């Protein structure tokens, strides 16, 4: 795995389910903004989890117009607690 800096996080929604929307964003910001090295995190609801990055244009997969369309943009490292850390995949780095 081409391990680069952390680029994205997936968080099981059950981990922050008890919080209202504002408190949930605050918790996710506190947990991941510095890890991702960004001033702001952007949070998307993806079914039963949240996809968190530092750019609202980030995507889970390569975009439809890319030759790598449909392939994951990140290598996911399962932390075992409902959180997955996403690092740039080899294909992402090569693109």
């Amino acid at each position, binding site marked *: 795995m081409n391990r680069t800096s952390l680029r994205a996080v997936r968080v099981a929604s059950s981990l922050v389910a008890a919080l*209202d*929307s*504002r408190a949930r*964003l*605050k918790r996710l*910001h506190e947990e991941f*903004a510095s890890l991702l090295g960004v*001033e*702001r*995190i*952007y*949070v*998307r*609801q*993806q079914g039963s989890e949240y*996809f968190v990055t530092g750019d*609202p*244009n*980030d*995507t*889970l*997969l*390569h*975009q*439809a117009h890319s030759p790598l*369309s*449909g392939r994951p943009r990140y290598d996911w490292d399962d932390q075992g607690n409902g959180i997955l850390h996403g690092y740039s995949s080899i294909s992402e780095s090569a693109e």
Partner: protein
Amino acid sequence: MPSLSKRYMNWTNVVFTPAVVGATEIQFSGVTSVQIDPGGSLAKFSGDGDRYPTLIINDFNEPTMTVHTADLSALRQCSVGAVGTIQATLMDARNGSGAGAITYVMTNAVVATNPLKGGHRQFGESTITFHGYSADGTTNPLTSTIVGDTP
């Protein structure tokens, strides 16, 4: 710093940024309402002698953001089919756009409808609806964020 009210009131920083090189962002003033809809739809299965669905799943989402504004000059810059990013900040009822506010951002937002109306003794108003598409077919184009240094 005042504590968070956990209640929200009024919108600010409602901006559409066209995805065109060199395009300037379009700031909406006179915003009276913003509606954000994840746009989930359900698929229901039934068969045999079923009288009720035996399975209901959320199989598809078509998120939208709708802006009600009296800013008709901004409206004229938003033609149907224009693509860009729309964002709007929902203010904390006590702290305004500071602590407690939530900013919603929808990427790949396409202007879907932009009718305007004006009635007798009423302010002219437009309702602009943006539909969001996913760049990869999987990622939700609708995101939310907060300013970092808030309690």
